[in-house]
């Protein structure tokens, strides 16, 4: 408890004296309650919407946040003023009418907690740093599980505001939803700063970000301004990249978050249609070191058949066949015996599946003494044809993401590193492709976290434009179900959803309802007019509609009212600056792509070595070899590449033991691509 003496006596203790700004006032039309009180201030008092105040009365202290303000003079009618000044607005009256400024504050906390009584009359003081901690109940967790989200500012005062990690990342509550208008970079910046803050406070958290538009999150590993003396300093300056302000640095200091870019960021992007150039804006050779392909094979997506195949395609019969293929054909340990008298077939790739279908059709068409069979293992010929068309069409539909070959590029499941961001760039993919990527990645995260086998205890999934993926209306999709599941169960397994959207009202209410923390940047008035915001006062809504960059309103389980905070501009290179500093490379020919990639693996690689290696190679085989070398890494990439080419062309010694079609080759110490 702060005593009234403590608040007003400057010499009694080391704590600076609290600044009195007003007095509680209660009238019959506007009485004080246990949860709301009114006070007036002197005209020049630094009180506004969002200001934290404390009332010190006898035996009770009440903390509140200003949620409404009004002022009036003793003029009973505007007409009186008009007449009094002869209709001349420039005329100055001899006496200024007194103008009272009153404010309504919502109670944040009271000490003692019981009995809960109407707020008594008394002096009102501006909250200082200690009051902010008490008002927001941060004294119970800030030193233990606090994650800085921003600073409460009032004049010179900058008091850090902490979220409770137990309620941000689980297990008590979890998830963050961010809402704000587009174009002010608030949503992205907030997420970036919050991640910086979380990484500063925790060492068991990784993050997966889906970059769904443009270049927003493609340069998280570069600072907003180059270190003095670094090679990039001049380029930053030449391009006029805006550095951080002193105010930003002060905020970093106050919040105790290191002012630096993310140290560990890995980027993943699908291929372009050519199968070797990456479909991302981060293709400048200078920054390709941590950019990886994202390419999935048959086995990766068959369990997501309902995502990749439209509902109309998958009737009961087709579904049964797909299940059959999934369970009996793909990945059958000893291969699949079609019954055509030939060797068992190992189906691991789309190419293998295509071969499987071809043999099955051959078998059926030749069966029943040449008249053809109607069914194959209880599946009708037409169903087989339909499923064949749909599945083999996936390669075309998801060109660049799905590979017909064996090599796959995926996130490092089981080997996630703490304090690392995995950015999955799906900005150039269509809606269908984005759905598939988000669904599969999130599902795999859940699966690994449930088994505690991801490599980190907790993983944050950042999804922008959530109203697109989990809308409040529209059809039930697999992705929507996945996101609902995360929002409801994620906190128990450490899977945390950070979502951003322009229109929170258009996000599924169960997703929003399960988010423990809600953050708002500047909002659209139309959005604020929706029922979800009616819990806010009109003044709060209007303040939300005019928030400037770097200002947020935060709701958190420990805060009984919404709090306005400021956060610094994240010390990461903005996407728009990033693509100016590192312009995306034009797509290159295969030879050039191989040379660039191999040069990174081995600086001694010569262009003519690559040209010679490619000289007589089949393009598909070369592509496959290139992707295999890229996937697995090599200290002698050209040599390994050539070995694979020779093997594909069967120029090496044949296998001592004949293999079934598609069967895995025997392990050989000389084979760089052996499994």
């Amino acid at each position, binding site marked *: 408890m702060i005593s009234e003496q403590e608040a007003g006596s400057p010499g009694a203790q080391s704590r600076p004296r609290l600044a009195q700004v007003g007095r509680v006032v209660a009238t019959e039309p506007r009485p004080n309650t246990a949860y709301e009180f009114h006070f007036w201030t002197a005209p020049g008092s630094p009180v506004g919407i969002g200001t934290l105040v404390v009332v010190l009365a006898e035996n009770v202290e009440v903390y509140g946040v200003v949620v409404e303000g009004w002022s009036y003079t*003793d*003029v*009973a*009618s505007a007409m*009186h*003023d008009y*007449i*009094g*000044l002869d209709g001349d607005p420039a*005329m*100055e*009256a*001899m*006496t*200024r*009418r*007194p103008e009272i400024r009153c404010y309504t504050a919502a109670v944040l906390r009271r000490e003692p907690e019981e009995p809960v009584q109407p707020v008594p009359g008394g002096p009102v003081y501006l909250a200082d740093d200690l009051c902010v901690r008490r008002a927001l109940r941060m004294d119970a967790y800030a030193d233990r599980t606090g994650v800085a989200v921003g600073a409460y500012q009032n004049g010179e005062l900058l008091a850090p505001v902490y979220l409770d990690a137990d309620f941000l990342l689980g297990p008590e509550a979890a998830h963050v939803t961010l809402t704000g208008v587009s174009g002010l970079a608030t949503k992205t910046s907030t997420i970036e700063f919050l991640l910086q803050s979380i990484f500063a406070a925790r060492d068991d958290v990784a993050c997966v970000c889906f970059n769904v538009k443009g270049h927003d999150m493609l340069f998280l590993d570069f600072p907003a301004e180059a270190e003095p003396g670094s090679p990039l300093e001049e380029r930053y300056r030449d391009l006029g990249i805006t550095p951080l302000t002193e105010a930003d640095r002060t905020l970093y200091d106050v919040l105790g978050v290191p002012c630096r870019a993310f140290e560990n960021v890995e980027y993943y992007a699908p291929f372009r249609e050519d199968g070797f150039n990456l479909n991302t804006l981060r293709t400048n050779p200078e920054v390709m070191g941590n950019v990886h392909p994202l390419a999935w094979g048959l086995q990766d997506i068959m369990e997501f058949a309902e995502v990749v195949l439209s509902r109309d395609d998958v009737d009961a019969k087709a579904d049964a066949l797909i299940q059959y293929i999934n369970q009996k054909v793909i990945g059958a340990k000893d291969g699949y015996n079609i019954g055509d008298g030939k060797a068992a077939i190992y189906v691991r790739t789309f190419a293998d599946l295509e071969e499987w279908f071809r043999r099955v059709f051959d078998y059926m068409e030749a069966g029943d003494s040449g008249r053809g069979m109607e069914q194959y293992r209880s599946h009708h010929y037409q169903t087989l044809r339909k499923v064949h068309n749909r599945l083999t069409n996936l390669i075309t539909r998801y060109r660049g993401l799905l590979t017909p070959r064996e090599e796959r590029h995926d996130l490092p499941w089981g080997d996630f590193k703490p304090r690392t961001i995995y950015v999955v760039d799906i900005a150039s993919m269509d809606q269908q492709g984005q759905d598939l990527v988000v669904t599969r990645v999130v599902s795999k995260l859940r699966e690994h976290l449930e088994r505690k086998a991801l490599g980190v205890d907790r993983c944050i999934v950042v999804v922008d434009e959530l109203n697109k993926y989990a809308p409040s209306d529209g059809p039930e999709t697999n992705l929507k179900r996945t996101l609902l599941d995360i929002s409801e169960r994620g906190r128990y397994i450490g899977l945390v959803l950070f979502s951003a959207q322009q229109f929170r009202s258009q996000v599924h209410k169960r997703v929003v309802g399960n988010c423990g923390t809600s953050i708002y940047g500047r909002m659209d008035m139309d959005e604020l007019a929706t029922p979800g915001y009616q819990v806010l006062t009109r003044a709060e809504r209007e303040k939300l509609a005019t928030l400037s960059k770097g200002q947020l309103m935060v709701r958190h389980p420990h805060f009984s009212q919404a709090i306005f905070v400021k956060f610094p501009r994240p010390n990461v290179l903005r996407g728009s600056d990033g693509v100016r500093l590192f312009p995306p490379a034009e797509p290159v020919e295969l030879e050039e792509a191989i040379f660039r990639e191999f040069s990174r693996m081995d600086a001694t690689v010569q262009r003519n070595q690559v040209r010679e290696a490619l000289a007589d190679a089949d393009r598909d085989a070369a592509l496959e070899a290139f992707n295999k070398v890229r996937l697995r890494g090599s200290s002698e990439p050209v040599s390994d590449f050539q070995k694979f080419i020779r093997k594909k062309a069967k120029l090496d010694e044949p296998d001592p033991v004949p293999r079934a079609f598609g069967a895995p080759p025997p392990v050989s110490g000389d084979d760089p691509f052996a499994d």
Partner: protein
Amino acid sequence: MSLADALQRFVREHREDPALRVVRGTPQSDEMTELAPATPATHQARVVEGAALEQKPVPALGGSGFTHFLDGIQRSRVALIWHGVPVIWGYAAACVRERGADRLMRLAPGMCESREALIFPFAFAPPEELQRWGLACVDSSPMARVPEDADNPAYIRQYSLEMLGDLRRRLERTLLKRWLESSGEGQWLLVDGELPDSEQEGGLRRVVGLIKSHQTRYFAGEEQRMLLELPEGQRTTVFQPHRHGYRPVYSWYLRLRDSSGQDQAFGLVRVEARADEETLRMAGEISGWLLAERTPLSLPDARWDRMIYPVRDCEQYLRSIAPTAVEMDARLQV
């Protein structure tokens, strides 16, 4: 202990006393006029500016020299019947408000006085028991002008209210004296109402009285017609009203607002100032100050046409610190 506290305790303890009857819900008044309206009167006056009462235009100044404003209020209600006599609860207060350089009004330091008392004729009801309970009592007997009707309840009420008015005027005089002792050159005080008789020779320097009601007539015939038809922004020449037993003052009428289509007294005020040459010299300038004080309007006060805003501000201030009717009712509901 405040009078209200003492009254509450007294009423509680004397609930069964047959000599006491508590009166609840009687109306209160800030002015005496409701219960004791001023009586119309006619007095003599002598024109001291020029040969006859004339209209004079007031120069437009656009500013005012008044820096301080004095006014008082009084509130009253019949609170008890004590031994068959109506006992008036009376509250009187006065203050001087100061206009700062920012044109905002504030209480001048140390310039607020109030008094609260039970007023009744001690001759008909013993005050001792009330006083024993800490209740301040004031005897209204000295106000009785018609001894044979002294026990008439209507006169008792009137005399008690007159006594309260007297209390208020005394408070105003106290503050006026205090202001005169502490004020400096360049400071001017505007008093709401007639100027009191000055105890100090020449003491009312830089003090102006503003009279809004015109119950006393000083001129008749053509002069009366002329002053009642003063156009907006014009004043009469200065005259010296006859004030029996009081030191002389100078006075003049001033029309603050256009009275077309209104009552004759609309916007008409009478100004009083010290009877000396300086007043004669400054009558036009002081009138200009008063015209400048027309803004802002004093609405919604019913006397807004004659009341200048700082005087209303004084009243508002005094009302804000006065005991409320709700409180008094509550204390008597025991």
